[in-house]
């Protein structure tokens, strides 16, 4: 029972991380058909924003010393700012380009960010200590669950609830959903293209910052490639969820997280190193059965 509970929390917290990542990708894909492969580098950038540029392994913490109620908003702002800047400087120029061109542009942007970080910080991972108390376990029904897992899950649930409220209850949320379905039609009804896109980038950037914070707290290190894994899984989650479906991306994020943890727990020890192969195998099976994704949006097919 306690083992089961532990697995459940592992699955939920890993799934949360992937869901937050998938959400960041899906929001931007929804409004401009761009798969932003620089998203992983946004995550790393936000973590490094806490450090003073240096090539030493022992990082000189800079903003990271701030109390959490200042640090968190600051990093969210950094994430949103970076994301908005990349839209204004890079992606806006590709607004009417085909999706493949935009994707390549996002790769290029990712390279630029990564090498910028490399220049300032070198490739050595840096140790950062954020809130060590979050690493301590709490007992829940006999199972010892790290506090950070609970915090991650709670943050994700709060983010999801807030985003759902925003999308369902506000005018801008409504416009974002309309724009995600048919951008040109939304514009013809007066929805401002730039506003909606900037907003999506801002939220996506803040999600990247949140993921960065969780990853850095969890691993205690800042590494230039730290966002790559989440980005990859998040991208896969948006595909499985049905590209364009925001709830689908979130659900698929949780599914992949759950599947990873389940394979980790149930595979024989010798096979565990191949866990990711099993996860991707499952992804392939899903896509063979449902190429349009599990939760493909009921698009408004022309009906007669």
């Amino acid at each position, binding site marked *: 029972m306690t083992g089961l509970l532990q697995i459940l929390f592992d699955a939920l917290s890993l799934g949360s991380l992937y869901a937050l990542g998938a959400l960041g990708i899906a929001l931007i894909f929804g409004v401009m058909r761009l798969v932003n492969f620089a998203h992983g580098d946004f995550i790393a950038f936000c973590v490094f924003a806490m450090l003073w540029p240096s090539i030493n392994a022992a990082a000189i913490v800079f903003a990271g010393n701030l109390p959490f109620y200042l640090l968190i908003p600051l990093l969210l702002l950094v994430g949103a700012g970076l994301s908005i800047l990349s839209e204004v400087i890079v992606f806006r120029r590709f607004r009417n380009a085909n999706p493949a061109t935009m994707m390549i542009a996002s790769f290029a942007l990712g390279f630029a960010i990564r090498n910028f970080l490399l220049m300032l910080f070198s490739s050595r991972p840096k140790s950062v200590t954020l809130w060590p108390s979050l690493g301590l376990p709490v007992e829940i029904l006999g199972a010892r669950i790290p506090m950070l897992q609970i915090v991650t899950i709670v943050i994700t649930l709060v983010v999801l609830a807030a985003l759902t409220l925003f999308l369902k209850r506000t005018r801008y949320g409504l*416009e974002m959903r309309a724009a995600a379905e*048919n951008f040109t039609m939304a*514009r*013809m009804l*007066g929805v*401002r293209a730039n506003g909606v896109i900037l907003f999506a980038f801002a939220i996506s950037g803040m999600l990247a910052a949140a993921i960065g914070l969780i990853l850095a707290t969890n691993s205690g290190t800042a590494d230039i490639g730290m966002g790559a894994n989440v980005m990859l899984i998040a991208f896969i989650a948006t595909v499985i969820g049905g590209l364009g479906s925001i709830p689908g991306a979130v659900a698929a994020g949780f599914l992949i997280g759950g599947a990873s943890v389940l394979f980790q727990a149930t595979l024989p020890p010798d096979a565990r190193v191949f866990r990711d192969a099993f996860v991707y195998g499952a992804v392939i099976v899903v896509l063979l059965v449902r190429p349009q994704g599990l939760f493909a949006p009921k698009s408004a097919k022309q009906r007669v």
Partner: protein
Amino acid sequence: MTLLTVDNITVRYGRLTALRGISLSIDEGEVLFVTGPNGAGKSTLLNAIAGVVPPVSGSITIDGIDVTGVPPEQIARRRFSLVPEGRNVFGALTIEENLKVGAGMRADKHKVAGDLETVYGEFPMLADRRHTAAGMLSGGQQQMLVIGRALMTSPRLMAIDEPSLGLAPKIIDQVYEILVRLRAQRRLTLLIVEQSSTRALMTGGRMILMRGGRIVLEGPASDMIKDERLKQAYFGFGDH
């Protein structure tokens, strides 16, 4: 009073020229039918007016103000509403949400609730299913929804691309009945792309015949219908 003037516009998609020097003007409260065979450039004309495809030359003016190259969301703010071909409902949004998207940009927020009730009054079927996802509606219902949604923008000019395409004759009658009534009630100016010239005759108004990206014939619908050139345009005779 002239509401819209299109002056000698040319539109290209890559190397393909869709409109070759089109000029027309519409007075306030007028009905203008645009007809012509497939590929004549009718939809492109509407898209150019709506700001979706900017012309490479020529100009478009609304109320005497040049709006050439202005993006669609700004054209919409001048209360021009385009209902494109293919019934572009937001399928995952409910009927009511679809209607509200149309009202989002309006400054006169206090009138929105009233207009919503008016639209529901015109299309009672929409009112009954207001919380249903628009993707679940039939073709005719979707056509009513997009017209209703355009009305929610409180338009002065409504441009509709093939409102009768793929609809049962009974439903087409209903759609036109509503359009004619709305025109009378609100001094709505209508620009309607329509293959069926009999509709144009029944509704009255002016008619433009397009072919190969040009206007080949223009006049009152009642005169045009008798013109041999109308048939020629469709069947490809004549010296084009």
